[in-house]
């Protein structure tokens, strides 16, 4: 039995005429271990600042500044979080961010679904031109629109309201959303609508009852995209809103830091609160998030 195995092994060796194979194998193993370690080091580099943020959000200045710089907090000061949420206004900012982001996602999805459907499926002369027109918008940098938008919003007395940023967020989310959705709609067979048509549905019913539910995967992708851009956006939010009651998390925390630089703990807590929803979303949908962003990159 044992002999048989030996011969087979020898035969294999012979076939490939690789006398140095064992050496090659150890070399390969060393290299791959080395690579693995390098990857681990890189992972630590990517994570360590975030770990540090998490720990100092529970510490007081004494620990952060030297007492216990990188260890876990000696005392977990939840009071930092309470302080950030109440006197630091982070709770208000958080609510504002949720209002703005949810509204943006809902409105964007609705507009993207209806307009993409009309562009891809319905019969009208200018549908192709309209699509191209929307897609041109992907090349427009927000900087170029900042001042004119400021003037427009001022004219309509919309500055300093949630709408002042929801409206631009939606408008700038439309092109990429329409790109993703029209691509997705092409893949839905037309027969479905034809069958529904025979049943005598109205176009609104076909859209609402039949197409909209089918669009769900694409809506998920678009929502992730829209979430990332509106939750994290700074320039518009910083320019169009200056009342503390209305600020979103990004701007709110930014101004909070400028006003009160002395205590790091509560600021760290504010930063963690601003990041936590994103991290949770990422953990739950990590595959989907990565896919969405790749899609945006490749198509954009």
């Amino acid at each position: 039995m044992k002999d048989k195995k030996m011969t087979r092994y020898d035969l294999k060796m012979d076939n490939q005429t690789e006398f140095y194979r064992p050496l090659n194998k150890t070399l390969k193993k060393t290299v791959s271990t080395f690579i693995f370690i390098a990857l681990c080091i890189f992972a630590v580099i990517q994570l360590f600042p975030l770990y540090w943020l998490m720990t100092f959000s529970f510490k007081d200045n004494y620990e952060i500044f030297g007492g216990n710089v990188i260890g876990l907090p000696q005392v977990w000061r939840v009071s930092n979080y309470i302080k950030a949420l109440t006197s630091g206004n982070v709770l208000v900012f958080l609510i504002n961010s949720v209002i703005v982001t949810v509204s943006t996602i809902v409105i964007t999805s609705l507009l993207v679904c209806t307009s993409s459907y009309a562009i891809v499926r319905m019969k009208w002369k200018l549908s192709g031109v309209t699509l191209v027109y929307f897609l041109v918008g992907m090349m427009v940098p927000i900087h170029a629109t900042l001042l004119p938008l400021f003037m427009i919003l001022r004219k309509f007395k919309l500055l300093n309201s949630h709408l002042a940023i929801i409206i631009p967020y939606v408008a700038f989310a439309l092109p990429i959303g329409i790109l993703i959705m029209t691509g997705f709609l092409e893949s839905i067979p037309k027969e479905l609508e034809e069958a529904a048509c025979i049943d005598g549905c109205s176009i609104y019913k076909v859209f609402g009852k039949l197409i909209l539910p089918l669009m769900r995967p694409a809506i998920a992708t678009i929502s992730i995209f829209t979430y990332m851009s509106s939750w994290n956006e700074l320039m518009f939010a910083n320019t169009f809103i200056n009342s503390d009651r209305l600020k979103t998390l990004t701007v709110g925390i930014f101004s909070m830091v400028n006003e009160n630089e002395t205590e790091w703990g509560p600021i760290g807590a504010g930063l963690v609160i601003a990041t936590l929803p994103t991290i949770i979303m990422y953990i739950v949908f990590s595959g989907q998030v990565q896919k969405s962003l790749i899609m945006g990159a490749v198509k954009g």
Partner: protein
Amino acid sequence: MQKLLGNKKAIFLFVFPALLLFTVIVIVPIFFSVYYSMLDWDGIAKGTFVGFNNYIRLFQNNTDGFPRTVLNSFILAILSVGIQLPIALTLALILAREVRGEKIFRTIYFIPVIISTVVIGQLWTRIYNPDYGLLNTVLRGIGLESLAGRWLASTEQALGCVFVVIVWQYIGYHMLIMYASAKSISSEIYESALIDGANELTIAMRISIPLMKPIIRVCVIFAVIGSFKSFDLIYVMTGGGPLHATEVPTILMYTSIFAKYRYGYGSAMAIFIIVECLVFTVAIKKLMSKDVME
């Protein structure tokens, strides 16, 4: 069916709201910006038309350092393409070859991408803080006191420090795009190359990278354009300081408009940035597609 899908009222209802919003908020402002850029205007009094004077002043007899901000953005672009992308490419190629923990590494590297720039800026400002920051504390702790620097507070080091954070945040993004592209190369190609006796390095250089050229080109464009348009991170970390050391065109545009009320002049900067981005996008596409042909 035809009648159903040709319903003009429905088409109007479906498309018009999006179209109107998009036109008013995204398209119309560009024309306004172009118009503003030809005015001498403080936003309050009526502007006077000055033609291309604002553009000329960006570079001739310039007093606010605009050319230097452009230079800074170029430095960021060159560093991004020269340092960030090669690292991202290396990581992508390694991860795409089925190493242990592929998915976990990919997920971890990508985390900084999704976090708000404000949070990242604030966090790294604290890491760089000369007195209490993590970096200097650790350096002192391990006896490398001499390496401790002023970082963001130093005119020489600040731009480099900012760049490190840009790399840290966006490397995962480039890595992921390249990774997806490397993964889409059929495994048969790899296998037949391996049988032919090619080693991993040759495979990467001769097969993977040439096949990934189109996506690498996308990454180069993103890195360059991203540098030209960078605003958030620098605005949060240094505001362009110390002494304009990290100032980029977008930040100068922002302060020109909203701090100095030079609406016309600031708009000229905005238009300059757009044109710059367009020109470079086209140029990179041209240059790199020639490469693909060869």
